[in-house]
């Protein structure tokens, strides 16, 4: 990986001799094609699952498409956005991990709190309305 990472260094205007900056990794045709192939498969499967109802239960389908979506995001990160632990001396990875933590807190927190808020509201069906 390190040879890959150093190949694209002319873009930075300074050499790769200092340790904290591993630079932006070089893109390769193989990497893009692998990412594209995996993305097509990982997009086609969830659409097929939902449109055909192949798994039977809704819960199983929901879990499956969420997992496939998460895997596809990782595929895009690795093959298209070239995320590696060494890119830019690890700072892009640090920023990404921090962002993922914030995103998880935002999403789970909102959904969790608001779900309980909804279910704990006073039950009322339309016939009780004035």
């Amino acid at each position: 990986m390190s040879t890959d990472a150093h190949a694209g260094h002319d873009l930075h205007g300074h050499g790769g001799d200092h340790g904290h900056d591993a630079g932006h990794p070089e893109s390769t045709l193989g990497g893009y094609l692998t990412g594209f192939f995996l993305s097509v498969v990982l997009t086609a499967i969830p659409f097929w699952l939902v449109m055909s109802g192949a798994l039977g239960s809704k819960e199983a389908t929901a879990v499956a498409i969420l997992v496939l979506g998460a895997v596809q995001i990782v595929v895009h990160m690795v093959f298209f956005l070239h995320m590696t632990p060494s890119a830019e001396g690890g700072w892009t990875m640090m920023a990404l991990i921090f962002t993922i933590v914030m995103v998880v807190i935002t999403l789970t927190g909102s959904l969790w709190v608001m779900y309980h808020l909804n279910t704990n509201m006073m039950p009322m069906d339309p016939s009780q309305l004035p």
Partner: protein
Amino acid sequence: MTTMTAEAVKTEDKRLFYVADEHEHGEGGSTLLGFWLYLMSDCLVFAVLFATYGVLGGSYAAGPSPRDLFDLPLVAVNTSMLLFSSITYGFAVLEMQKNRANRMLLWLFVTMLFGGAFLGIELSEFAHMIHEGATPQRSAFLSSFFTLVGTHGLHVTFGIIWMITLVIQVWKFGLSEANKRRLLCLSMFWHFLDVVWIGVFTFVYLMGVLR
């Protein structure tokens, strides 16, 4: 004690306890990292919009539900448009690395076509929904839907405007270092939008039809 420490520091003044980061960075040396940080903050914007949709996505106000509105084959076509535009932008970056400006411009043009097709399909979908009365004002579900998907579409629009700008830049000034840097930034932006779209079609469209 303190004088001793001070002296020790003086004698071994080469031992530094912080990162000695005073070497010259070339122009634009930190642009890609800075742009990545921008993308991460943009990611938080989308996280909030996703959370809003997650909370309000079931509040139809007796209006149309996702099952009534969403046309999955059309969404699949739209998704493939964005996916194709991602790989063609990848090809443009590969040509850029080989310093072949004309081929790079060709791939950038193809990417623009796919991006434009994506926007066209999305706008026609919106127009169709609004024509059927499913406007953003209709229910909380539709408000949050249009905000989330519309924000993504707005990003794609700006990505295409940026792409047109860069086509003109490269056409006039060639593949200079600055233009290469800009092309790499737009590459990250474009692939990032595809990542957000994975969340949209999974969480909004597929889960919505499933609900």
